[in-house]
């Protein structure tokens, strides 16, 4: 039951994200946009490029979707509404997100195209720069909750959400999440102006539709993760718990989508440099800081 509800919420979320993305990129608000563009894509040929690594080419879009769905499976919408409440939930989110990278590397390698390949390897090359910044802030979050259960993480924020309790971790996680979802200005693997679509450049028709759906679901999942880890998930006055979850998730997703419009894409060297030299020390500091707070203050 909760699985069906979660998938439904994810789809609604992905739909809204697609509408938002269309609005951000074209300036027109078209509520029916995702439906027509989805239908249009399904009706077009799905071309297989010449000399593909066929298995990689075919597996990548579904794998991306599965990775995003798996990560969403452990994120609670309300106290009872979580597909599986794993004892290692917070860690599992990270494990599932690691396969986003695998999917993109496959999508980059599969079609035997230069643009796609450069895009895929760019994402792989940045791996440490963002994945460390996903897992280390989560560690600090789990420290406060003294549990890896995502539900307990939410409950630990009853007094004060983590965004306020550990703002450094929040900022780092937010930026790293944008990196995982390859949203502008961190859209290095797709880079419309530089790589003409990069890893997505060779996908057409229904395969492209799957890819775009997966990307939208991924954005929703990451926004939900931010809401669960840092914004107190379902906690909030007046409104029912699920509404709070949905509202926070959507607001985070909108912020993630809008941020990229007003800044240029980061240079790859800067992503690496800032990720390694600033992000990782800051994330370590965040763990230390949270530790001190936990031991000294509480």
């Amino acid at each position, binding site marked *: 039951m909760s699985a069906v509800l979660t998938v439904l919420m994810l789809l609604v979320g992905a739909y809204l994200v697609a509408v938002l993305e269309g609005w951000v990129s074209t300036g027109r608000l078209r509520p029916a946009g995702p439906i027509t563009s989805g239908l249009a894509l399904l009706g077009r040929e799905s071309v297989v490029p010449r000399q593909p*690594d066929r*298995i*990689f080419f075919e597996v990548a879009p579904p794998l991306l979707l599965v990775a995003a769905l798996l990560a969403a499976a452990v994120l609670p919408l309300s106290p009872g509404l979580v597909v599986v409440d*794993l*004892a*290692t939930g917070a*860690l*599992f989110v*990270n*494990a599932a997100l*690691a*396969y986003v*990278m*695998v999917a993109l*590397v*496959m999508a980059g*390698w599969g079609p*035997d195209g230069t643009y796609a390949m450069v895009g895929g*390897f760019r994402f*792989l*090359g940045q*791996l440490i720069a963002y*994945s460390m910044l996903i*897992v280390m802030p989560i560690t600090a979050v789990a420290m406060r909750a003294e*549990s*890896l*259960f995502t539900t307990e993480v939410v409950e630990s924020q009853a007094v004060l959400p983590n965004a306020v309790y550990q703002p450094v971790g929040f900022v780092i996680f937010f930026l790293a999440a944008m990196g995982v979802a390859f949203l502008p200005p961190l859209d290095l693997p797709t880079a419309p102006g530089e790589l003409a679509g990069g890893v997505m450049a060779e996908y057409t028709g229904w395969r492209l539709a799957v890819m775009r759906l997966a990307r939208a679901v991924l954005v929703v999942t990451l926004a939900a993760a931010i809401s669960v880890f840092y914004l107190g998930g379902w906690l909030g006055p007046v409104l029912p718990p699920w509404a709070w979850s949905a509202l926070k998730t959507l607001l985070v997703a909108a912020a993630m989508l809008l941020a990229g419009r007003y800044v240029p894409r980061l240079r790859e060297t800067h992503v690496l440099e800032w990720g390694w030299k600033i992000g990782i020390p800051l994330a370590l500091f965040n763990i230390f800081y949270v530790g001190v707070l936990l031991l000294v203050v509480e």
Partner: protein
Amino acid sequence: MVQAVFTGFFGLAAIWFAVVVFRTSSMVRSALALLFSQAAIGGMFLAMQTEFLGVLQIMMMATEMAIMAIFMVMYMMDPGGLGGMDMTHQKRASQVAGALGALAALAVAFFAGWGPIAPEVRPAEQVYGLGIEIMERSMLIFETAGVTILTAMIAATAIAIKRRGKE
């Protein structure tokens, strides 16, 4: 029963992907097959209800094998495997070694005294138990290993930088 089926399934998947590692001539495929083989072992852990280890295995292997894929593409010629390079060599020796290894593993499985089956432990307690194991009894070992690896990494980087400076 279901548990056994899943464990067996993931075990077979791990073996099959491991075979693919050598059967393919594409470096990238080989690396990713290894990734999925390791992830299948993670699946086995999950099926055996060792949740923390399973998730950790699945997570770490995705990262590690992907990094390996980078190096394979960078350093190996013909990463796409178009040349149809054969990844097997020293066949006789490896066959013998494989057979002996399998025998040894089977022997251990059948003849070792495994003791009584442990009662089911809740995942949360497992995490706790693992933490106590790492942080109390084996702490010295883990800390030593960690510091050693870190030293080695820094030393390796330092060597590389020095050499580039000379050139």
